[in-house]
């Protein structure tokens, strides 16, 4: 086993007072005033009783909604913070790519930063020396090696930082969504690098929101929810479960809305005109918003279209089409989205009712599916549509 975690828990103490005590004088004064009172703390459990084993050579994706404990788990595994309970056994050095460029100092030159950053990431001196040329080649900044990195463009900076990290030869590697950096060319290089690492028989842990990358990079996955491990298994199963968690959330939300007061205009119902649409259909959604006597004036509505991975595909703000609504009567609206070729898959709608601030919001108020058949004249392999957030109505004209 490369990694074994048993009964891993992490809780943070959150002080109940509005402002935490950060001054000695305050701490002493508090102690004097209430010498025997236990401090007013609440334990916030970020991770509770998580156990798993990861064999060598696996690339493991860690997925879950925001706040599920993914990053906490990675922080425990990389020893940035200590567990509250439990035990982790790592059978090798753990390198981390939690954020590229940590430890880079703007005043130091590229060369000096490579050595400093390499050392911080756990590389030994001759290891850095041996791989120095490779690192420089990979980053493509050789001409600026003796320039302070504060004069680098942000692209160069990130490339250099990532190159150092990518050449880390640890047996275990933890990555927190850094692959999203840089241009397309660099991203491809980075992905290839990560794949090499896993193929070497080393073990990679990868935290991400991007299911596409998890699918293409990982050999197995872990699904976390509310700080507990829900499922460890194949990538496809885990991603399915992860997507399912969005629907559960929506169902709970509908239930919860029934008890809300009507002192602001409440979103009562969001219903797509059809549960399924074709890629090139116009999509429409009916929205019903309740009346209120407590709010005087008009409000506007904004709807966000979110894909199954949590990416916002588009926003429809009623101000853009000049629609303001009176709050004193019930409003029935139909949102129509025209000329958009959405990729096949499941989408959810987040609706916001706003005036000077947000009056009411309902995330994941409804879902609909886009059917898998494509409107293109030819059928071809899936990678022809693999990239991009939406499909485009395009053509190539060949000039003679």
């Amino acid at each position, binding site marked *: 086993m490369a990694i074994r975690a048993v009964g891993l828990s992490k809780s943070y103490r959150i002080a109940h007072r509005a402002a935490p005590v950060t001054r000695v004088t305050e701490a002493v004064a508090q102690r004097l005033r209430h010498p025997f009172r236990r401090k007013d703390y609440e334990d916030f459990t970020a991770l509770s009783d998580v156990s798993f084993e990861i064999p060598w050579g696996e690339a493991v994706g860690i997925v879950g909604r925001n706040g599920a404990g993914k990053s906490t788990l990675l922080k425990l595994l990389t020893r940035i913070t200590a567990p509250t309970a439990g035990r982790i*056994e790592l059978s*090798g050095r753990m390198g981390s790519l939690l*954020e590229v460029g940590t430890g880079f100092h703007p005043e130091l030159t590229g060369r*000096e930063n490579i050595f*400093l950053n390499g*050392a911080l990431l756990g590389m030994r*001196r001759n290891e850095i020396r041996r791989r120095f040329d490779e690192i420089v080649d990979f980053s493509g900044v050789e001409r600026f090696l003796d320039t302070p990195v504060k004069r680098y463009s942000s692209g160069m900076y990130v490339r250099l930082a990532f190159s150092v990290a990518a050449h880390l030869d640890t047996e275990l590697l933890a990555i927190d969504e850094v692959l999203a950096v840089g241009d397309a060319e660099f991203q491809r290089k980075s992905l290839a690098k990560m794949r090499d690492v896993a193929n070497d028989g080393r073990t990679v842990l990868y935290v991400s929101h991007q299911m596409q990358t998890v699918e293409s990079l990982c050999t197995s996955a872990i699904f976390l929810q509310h700080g507990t491990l829900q499922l460890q298994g194949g990538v496809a199963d885990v991603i399915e479960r992860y997507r399912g968690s969005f629907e559960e959330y929506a169902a709970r939300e509908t239930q919860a809305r029934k008890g809300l007061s009507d002192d602001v205009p409440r979103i009562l119902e969001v219903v797509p005109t059809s549960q399924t649409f074709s890629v090139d259909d116009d999509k429409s959604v009916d929205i019903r918003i309740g009346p209120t006597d407590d709010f005087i004036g008009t409000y506007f509505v904004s709807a966000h279209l979110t894909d199954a991975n949590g990416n916002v595909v588009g926003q429809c703000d009623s101000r853009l089409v000049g629609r303001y609504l009176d709050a004193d009567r019930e409003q029935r609206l139909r949102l129509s989205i025209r000329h958009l070729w959405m990729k096949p898959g499941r989408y959810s709608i987040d609706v916001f009712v706003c005036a000077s601030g947000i009056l009411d919001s309902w995330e994941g108020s409804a879902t609909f599916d886009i059917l898998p058949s494509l409107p293109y004249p030819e059928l071809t392999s899936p990678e022809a549509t693999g990239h991009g957030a939406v499909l485009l109505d395009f053509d190539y004209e060949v000039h003679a």
Partner: protein
Amino acid sequence: MSKVVITPPGRLSLPHWQELWGAREVFLRFGQRDVLLRYRQTAVGVTWVILQPLVAAGIFSIIFGRIAGLSTDGVPYFLFSYISMLGWNLFSGVLNRAAPSLVANQALVSKVFFPRILVPASTILSVILDFVVALVLGVVLLVAFRVNPGIAALALPFWVLCTLCLSLGLGLAASAIMVRYRDVAYVLPWLVQIGLYATPVAYSLEAVPEQYRIFFDLNPMSWLLTGIRWSLLGTAPPPVWQLAAAVIVSAGALFAGLLVFQRFERSFADVI
């Protein structure tokens, strides 16, 4: 292949020495970074290292030597205060640089793992470098003033080591406490400033009235400075009890500093 076991930390623990040794490269790189950054984009560069004690010694000569006429055990006043400032700067330098180091490097502490103690500990490298450069000028001054400390000079590394242990112990504790309580940043420079006058830096212990003598005898820096002056200026050696006490207090300070640091370290990434 090395196996690493991570468990919840205990209440009192000493650092993991093997891990520290493994991360020595970080220690050196931090030290190098401090040195490079300090003198990059400065007009006179490393000259600052000798300019600071020179100017301080000059001012002390005028105020304490000429105006107040304090005793210096018969050593030329300028030389006396320059050598004393060497020792004092070693102490205050480590303390002043180590204390804010963790807070200044909070981005690192919350993002990557390495033995955190290396952050404050590595500050001694740049202070030692400053000390060595200033010491070279000090030796030049000794020759110029024709002062020969004799065999006592061999004891200098001992005094330096004791001073480093004492200041690093205090610095470690201060840096760890500062992560939680930022007041340390305001109180510490003020205490160091007071210490400069409350310690026989600009005057010899002879100048202290008998009834206050006890306070000076309790100050470890006063023992260490007497020792440094003995080793470099050939003045009277410190009494033997101070020699023993210096060892015990500096080792004790370092040990206590380590314990305090380890005690606070558990929560750095969560608090910082």
